[in-house]
């Protein structure tokens, strides 16, 4: 999956964000809509769509969309 495809997938589940609003270097915690629910949405997306378990510790170490992309299995 390319980072563009990944971003598009993230934007589709972050319902408060408009398509095109995220970039690889976007610090997602600075988004106005960022909340614990968005963290759950990321954890669920990785588990259901990408078949990858993301732990709370892994997520805490991520700051940008690119960091999240790196969590995908290679």
């Amino acid at each position, binding site marked *: 999956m390319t980072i563009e495809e990944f971003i598009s997938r993230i934007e589709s589940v972050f319902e408060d964000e408009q398509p095109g609003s995220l970039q690889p270097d976007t610090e997602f915690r600075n988004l106005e809509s960022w909340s614990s*629910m968005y963290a759950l*949405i990321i*954890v*669920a997306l990785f*588990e259901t769509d990408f078949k990858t378990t993301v732990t*709370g510790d892994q997520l805490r170490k991520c700051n940008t969309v690119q960091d999240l992309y790196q969590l995908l299995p290679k």
Partner: protein
Amino acid sequence: MLMQEFGDKVSPTVFEKVGVKERHISDTAQPGSLLALQAAEKLFAEHSIERNEIDALIYCSFHHDYIIPSTSCVLQHKLGLNENIATYDLTFGCSGYVYALSLAKSIIQSLGFKKVMLLTSTALTKFIHPHDHASRIIFGDAGSATLVGQEENTEKGIRDFVFGTDGSGFEKIIIRHGADSKKVSEESLLEKKDEYGNVYSDAHLFMDGQGVLTFTMKKIPVLIDDTLRKNNLSKSDIDLFVLHQANNFMNEQVRKIAGIEKEKFYSHIENYGNTVQASIPIALKAAIAEGKIKSGSKIFVAGFGVGLSWCATVINF
């Protein structure tokens, strides 16, 4: 009310995903067991059940009136039940109702009881910090009363169970102080904040939302498959899946991973919230009223959460 109170902290999208529009808050001055007592009185009144028919009482809750005695003993007296009955306290959370069903079935089969009353109650909102937004928008208080009996020569009944326990996750949903390992002290009330701004203390509910979500997504789809296999059933044999109503977002992930059609996956959280041990019986009653559970229906029930603990079975209605 909460949408107005939390308007600047919680997005409307979050309320929508969680799926709770209203929930009930019990009187903090009353013991949590009052909800179970009231539900029992309602069951007696609505179904003309005689109190002297009850052989055993199971009280499933983490709300106990006293350190000792057992709350089920107190309830036996308050409900005016016979002296020659057995009483059990089951301290479980979200897996509790299905666990209690397994105990009811087991004591009917092994001890010859005819009618077992199963009560649940949750007044968890007492233990949620006013500034713990994540938990306040999810949980509601409730009680339930179920009568489990035995009929001869019938296909109806509670089928085989599958259980699970992972005590290594005991801290994922916890109220740390107030029981034996640590009494409540001034230190207990020191406020802490998680990375999302939710406030809690050691005397309040703490929930690791991401940890609980991961546990649920990993274990519950497997629990569903294992329970169906144990009962020689497939998903298509089940008329309705009534899982613990944790919140719509989490249950939807389970539904997707387990591959269950939306029409067969019951949601009943909008007007009650997550009512812990009481969520499954409340949902069952509503599904019966809506005609989604009829005589002959095969209903899958699964409880999961605090412990960590999980349990499932199939009920032939």
